[in-house]
């Protein structure tokens, strides 16, 4: 490929994206559909700028999916992953098995051999991680119950690809096409006996986990110390590519490997840097991937057999939708969350392209079967954003949790002075306190079950991701005076602070912080009223401890109050000196130093010890030493009188 041609290609792709995506977003279609349409437009059946290389491009761009899973992993702490293990294995497992079984049965009924039917069923059971996560994330739906379940299922599917790759060669019905550079032959483990392969796989996983723990962190900290931003970016890319390479070599899905690495690094201090470094690459490659999918839709085939293709797409989507919805209800998701779940996952995923080509290489499926199916898969992917739009516009308003309460005809919709974002333990306490004192509040919340409950109780609740500008605007942020932030993570809180500061600078922000670290971050982000959630309650527990040990109640309460003030002052002090710390000091190191400073300040602040005003000791001493000779200087006086 000549240099000029390469530049031209890049120009075409980027131009298509830059034109189509904002247009699609403008019409509320979301970026994924925008990229897909851009792909169609420049593809062989549109303007014809790109030819058949669209499919090769898919393989390159699939790397965007790998990166996306790395970022997803970074955002998932191991603890959360552990909590999701139920949905991942039970819901995900059932989804794959039931869908594969039903699809295979249908294929069998259509006259395929059982081996072929099984392969087709397995492939069709997968959904598109790239499209679903991107779209749900964009709509702020990933954090709700339906979103979480979708994520869990997608994760399971990514795991399920591995055994599928292993099983396919056993399903071969005709000679395998091994002359073509076959997938399996390029890996290190290809020639090994099965037990060695298994060992290699386990070893690779262990290597990723251990390296993440003990090797990558110190390496990253060494790189961070060079203070060369681009070097850190290079290291982040190197990390992702390296892991992907390792995983492919042992026959594992690279996406799964990088996801694992992401999870291992989720607790590290470099999480945010890694995330922000990978993010743009991920976005671009994913965009490229969607464009490629759009460009590779074989319209010739569709035009030749429109009924067959349309029937296939419809049957696949309907079957998957049905299975998803029934499973969601079985797993006790609410009706609207089940709808979201079923509308999000009924397409067939990008792994299908890989698996179809692998299956034909291995002699499992012939071109007459894969041809129409590949077209149907691509169409089902293109349909997803549209389906989600249908869900959002037609289904949810009717059955689901509406984004905002319909205006009651008799109530004047006056604007509430206070907006509370997040109505968990903290937010609801603030809200109830204000309501009890006649201050009306507007609530933003993304847990739909909670939203329903609150609305039934007559609160004005908006449903969705509070850090989105449009939700804030429709909740009346333009007219409100105070914004109370009680979201469940520091990241989301900061996100919202930035949005609010940018678009609604007049809003006074009261933010809940979790600890010293994010209290400082919030202060630095321009929030004047920061409330560390552990401070007051912990001080009260301390006071009660004093009481239980025999202290007077009032002394304990005073001690706690004094301590809280002292602690706030110490935080202030720390904030003033925040620039003394090196920015590149690791988070953990900084936390220790903070604690050290605080404890030193505790020792120096003498007011913590006693309320000197109530101490009559020095007074008594003065009275005794002065005796009767000199004029007293204290209230009451030292002049000796009768003692009665």
């Amino acid at each position, binding site marked *: 490929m000549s240099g000029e041609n390469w530049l031209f290609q890049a120009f075409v792709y980027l131009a298509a994206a830059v034109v189509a995506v904002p247009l699609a977003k403008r019409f509320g279609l979301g970026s994924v559909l925008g990229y897909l349409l851009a792909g169609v437009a420049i593809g062989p059946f549109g303007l014809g700028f790109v030819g058949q290389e669209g499919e090769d491009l898919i393989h390159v761009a699939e790397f965007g999916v790998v990166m996306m899973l790395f970022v997803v992993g970074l955002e998932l702490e191991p603890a959360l992953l552990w909590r999701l293990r139920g949905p991942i294995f039970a819901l995900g497992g059932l989804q794959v098995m039931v869908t594969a079984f039903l699809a295979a049965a249908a294929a069998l009924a259509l006259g395929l051999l059982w081996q072929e039917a099984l392969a087709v069923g397995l492939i069709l059971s997968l959904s598109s991680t790239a499209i679903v996560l991107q779209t749900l994330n964009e709509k702020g739906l990933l954090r709700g119950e339906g979103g979480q379940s979708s994520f869990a299922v997608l994760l399971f599917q990514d795991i399920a690809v591995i055994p599928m790759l292993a099983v396919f060669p056993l399903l071969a019905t005709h000679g395998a096409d091994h002359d073509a550079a076959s997938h399996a032959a390029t890996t290190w483990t290809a020639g090994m006996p099965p037990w060695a392969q298994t060992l290699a796989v386990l070893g690779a996983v262990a290597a990723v986990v251990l390296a993440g723990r003990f090797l990558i962190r110190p390496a990253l900290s060494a790189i961070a110390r060079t203070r060369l931003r681009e070097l850190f970016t290079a290291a982040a890319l190197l990390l992702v590519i390296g892991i992907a390479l390792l995983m492919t070599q042992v026959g594992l899905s690279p996406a799964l490997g990088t996801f694992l690495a992401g999870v291992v690094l989720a607790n590290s201090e470099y999480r945010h840097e890694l995330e922000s470094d990978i993010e743009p690459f991920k976005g671009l490659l994913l965009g490229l991937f969607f464009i490629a999918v759009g460009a590779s839709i074989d319209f010739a085939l569709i035009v030749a057999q429109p009924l067959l293709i349309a029937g296939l797409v419809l049957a696949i989507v309907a079957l998957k939708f049905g299975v998803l919805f029934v499973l969601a209800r079985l797993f006790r998701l609410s009706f609207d969350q089940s709808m979201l779940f079923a509308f999000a996952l009924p397409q067939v995923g990008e792994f299908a392209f890989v698996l179809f080509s692998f299956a034909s290489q291995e002699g499992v499926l012939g071109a007459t079967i894969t041809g129409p199916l590949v077209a149907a898969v691509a169409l089902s992917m293109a349909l997803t954003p549209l389906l989600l739009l249908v869900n959002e516009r037609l289904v949810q308003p009717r059955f689901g949790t509406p984004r905002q309460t319909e205006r009651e005809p008799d109530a004047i919709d006056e604007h509430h002075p206070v907006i509370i974002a997040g109505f968990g333990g903290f937010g609801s306490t603030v809200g109830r306190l204000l309501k009890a004192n006649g201050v009306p509040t507007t609530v933003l919340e993304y847990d739909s079950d909670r939203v329903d409950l609150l609305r039934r109780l007559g609160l004005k609740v908006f449903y969705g991701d509070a850090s989105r500008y449009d939700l804030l605007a429709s909740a009346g942020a333009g007219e409100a005076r105070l914004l109370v932030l009680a979201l469940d993570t520091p990241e989301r809180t900061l996100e919202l602070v930035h949005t609010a500061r940018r678009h609604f600078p007049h809003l006074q922000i009261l933010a809940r912080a979790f600890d010293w670290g994010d209290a400082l971050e919030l202060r630095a982000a321009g929030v004047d009223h920061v409330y560390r959630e552990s401070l007051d309650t912990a001080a009260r527990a301390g006071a009660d401890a004093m009481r239980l040990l025999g202290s007077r109640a*009032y002394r304990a309460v005073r001690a706690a109050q004094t301590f809280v003030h002292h602690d706030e002052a110490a935080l202030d002090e720390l904030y003033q000196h925040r620039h003394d710390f090196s920015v590149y000091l690791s988070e953990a190191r900084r936390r220790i130093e903070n604690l050290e400073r605080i404890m030193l300040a505790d020792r120096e602040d003498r007011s913590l010890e006693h309320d000197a005003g109530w101490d009559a000791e020095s007074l008594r001493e003065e009275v005794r030493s002065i005796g009767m000779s000199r004029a007293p200087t204290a209230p009451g006086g030292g002049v000796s009188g009768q*003692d*009665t």
Partner: protein
Amino acid sequence: MARLLILFAHPALEKSRVHRRLIREAQAIEGVTVNDLYEEYPDFQINVQREQALLLDHDLIVLQHPMFWYSTPAILKQWQDLVLEHGWAYGSRGNALRGKLVLSLITTGGGEAAYQHGGFNRYTIAELLAPIAQTVRLCKMEYLPPYVIFGTHRMDEDAIAMAAARYRRLLLALRDDRIDLAGVNGSPVLNPAVAMLLEG
């Protein structure tokens, strides 16, 4: 038998020398209710209903506290502001407390001589307590001459022990109606009457 309620206010009893001893005596006497305000309401959230019920249940209310800046500790002021409600304690329809007796029982760092016209403190104890006396009157109760333990700054342990013993006998006498309250009215402090009673 009179039912005694001691409204006790000392913000730092752990530092007290005198009241600590006194209140221990009071708590040991049957028929005397000790309401330790700082212990009960460390956050100053006074339970008005509880306080009013307590008042209704007793005949003689003792306001016991150290003299702080010629006045009461802060919580006693808060107590007055919140508990003595209009329409309940005072006003044309506020008769709940009518006829009860109120006695201030105070310790002062300064000696008795200092609380004289021309003395260091320029005013007598009775004068300094005028706001309380008037509050009590407005609530249709009777205010007795205060009982004052003077000169605590100079008291040693023996003196404190003696003061505590006298205090105990005073409470018993009040409980058993052995003090001629009609006779003491008009005297500036209760101290001489108590001395006479205890010696006689």
